[in-house]
């Protein structure tokens, strides 16, 4: 259970760092393409052909960034869902205790 909580909190950090992570992924993808270009050119391919082949191999980079951004966004929902489920479980197990907390906070 502690492990689940830790995982949830770790994922939550990703939500707040979405923009930064997007920039990092963009750089990683760029580097990746560059290295492939070097590799193809080293094997004799002309520069523009190498770049074309490299881009093709890496695939749709915008899609990759969207998917990563989505993942990080969903982490928020997972966390919120986990909080709600935890609260419901707490209430089910000890309704009087939970009610007391709610009333005190209210």
């Amino acid at each position: 259970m502690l492990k689940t909580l830790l995982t949830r909190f770790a994922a939550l950090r990703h939500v707040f760092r979405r923009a930064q992570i997007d920039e990092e992924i963009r750089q990683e993808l760029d580097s990746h393409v560059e290295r492939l270009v070097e590799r193809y050119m080293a094997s004799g391919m002309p520069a523009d052909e190498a770049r074309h082949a490299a881009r093709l191999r890496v695939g749709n980079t915008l899609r990759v960034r969207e998917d990563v951004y989505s993942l990080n966004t969903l982490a928020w929902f997972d966390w919120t869902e986990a909080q709600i489920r935890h609260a419901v479980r707490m209430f089910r197990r000890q309704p009087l205790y939970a009610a007391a907390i709610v009333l005190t906070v209210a």
Partner: protein
Amino acid sequence: MAKGDMGRAEVLQGTLDLMVLRTLDTMGPMHGYGVARRLEQVSEDALKLNEGTVYVSLMRLLHRRLISTSWGTSENNRKARFYTITRSGRRALTIEMNNWNRIAGVMARVLGRA
């Protein structure tokens, strides 16, 4: 999105994540490019992967805390992000590899006979 599509996408994601995790387990800390090269090598280029998807896979594994990440320098002196398997990653890998082998065995029998 139709449920069938989601199911297929999930299977493909799951298998890629398993391959990426296994790669990090076998090869030690690697950057995304290295993982892609290794997958190409080991699969004898049968995988035909869009290599960008490796980074989505790595993000999923990071979310699940099966891997961790840190900045380092690559072989050609470039700044690169390295990924390392964690202890829970190693545990999950064992479980998922056993699962995979079991399912593969069942499929072989069922597809062979039916």
